[in-house]
């Protein structure tokens, strides 16, 4: 589906450029887009390096395990196919808690680390597992308790009550996340082919992009 969306965006853009006769703008936009892709990735380097360093300490000290035990029943229900005590669960928990507190720049590194842990128990390295899809669903709908950026913008424009949107945002976010979980469940059930047995990994090495060259 990503392939089709990508192709669709590009083809439609060029068609519109042809109609409007403004191909220069399209060309310019393409290279601007490429540039911002690199800029964003470079921005990720510092927070990835920092948080992955921190999380390594947390993992070795057993803090991640503690965290994952805390909300274990909930995570167990969401990720039934991740082996018990697998480090992935700890990272998933850290990712969800960071999202909850609106710590966006901590949530992403932990989510990526969780993905890498899930990838280590993935039998087919090019295809997403149900657990990966669930983690993604939770992150795209992103439960946030305090939308800090928006409150700041509203303050800037002299809102009488900048925080009045906390309640509505919270309600909308819960509904969106609920919808994501339901849809994820539905696809999971529909997708259930022959049962896959995962090798239970005790430790895991991160699987960074290596498979892309296969």
């Amino acid at each position, binding site marked *: *589906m*990503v392939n089709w*969306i990508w192709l669709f*965006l*590009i083809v*439609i*853009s*060029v068609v*519109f450029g042809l109609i*409007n006769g403004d191909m220069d*703008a*399209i060309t*310019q936009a393409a*290279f*601007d*887009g*490429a540039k911002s*892709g*690199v800029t*964003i990735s470079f921005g990720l380097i510092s927070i*990835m*390096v920092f948080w992955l360093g*921190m999380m390594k*300490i*947390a993992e*070795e*000290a057993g*803090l991640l395990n503690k965290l994952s035990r805390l909300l274990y029943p909930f995570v167990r229900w969401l990720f039934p196919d991740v082996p018990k005590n697998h480090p992935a669960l700890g990272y998933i928990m850290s990712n969800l808690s960071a999202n909850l507190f609106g*710590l966006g720049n901590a949530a992403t590194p932990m*989510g990526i*680390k969780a*993905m890498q842990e899930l990838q280590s128990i993935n039998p087919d*390295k*090019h295809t*997403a597992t149900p657990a*990966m*899809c669930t*983690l*993604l*669903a939770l*992150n*795209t*709908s992103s439960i*946030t308790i*305090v939308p*800090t950026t*928006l409150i700041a*913008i*509203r303050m800037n424009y*002299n*809102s009488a009550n900048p925080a009045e*949107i*906390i309640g*509505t945002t919270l309600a*909308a976010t819960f*509904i969106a996340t609920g*919808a994501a979980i339901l849809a994820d469940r539905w*696809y999971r059930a529909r997708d259930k082919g022959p049962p896959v047995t995962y090798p239970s990994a005790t430790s895991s090495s991160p*699987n960074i*992009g290596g498979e892309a060259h296969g």
Partner: protein
Amino acid sequence: MVNLFSQISAYMIPAIIVFIPLYAMVRKKKPVYELFVDGAKDGFDTAIGIIPHLVGMMVAISMFRASGAMDAMLMAVKPLFDWFGIPSEVLPLGILRPITGAGSLAFTADLIATHGPDSMIGRIASTIQGSTDTTLYVLTVYFGAVAIRNSKYALKVGLFSDLVGFVAAIVICMLVFG
């Protein structure tokens, strides 16, 4: 309330940064600095590995916005909104939000500046912007980091929840502030 939350957020990161190494060193006798460096090494490769995915996606999105194709798409759905009595100014957000975080934030800020933060449009826009994340970006970064090519149903689930969140944000705001 807001103050309380922003205070919590402000102390959260320093608290985590101090607690993790302190606990590991004092209670578990771990070589904290060496562990930090060891874990941090992965961060660089991961971030670099995401570049191709992000460049590919950002090119397509940037072209789509610049070509006017997005505006045309909006014009096509506008009558439906008018029919429901929903301010159609917020419609672009529904399409922008899953595609580009920076783009939709800019659009939200613009709506707030134009119509005022306490107008219905301003409130709906704030709620939409705050309630979901940028699906296409999250998918690109998270799956890009582990080189997943076949994302299965993940995108459909993400877009579905965006749509539900968008509708929910409008309905809730119209009920609460209407």
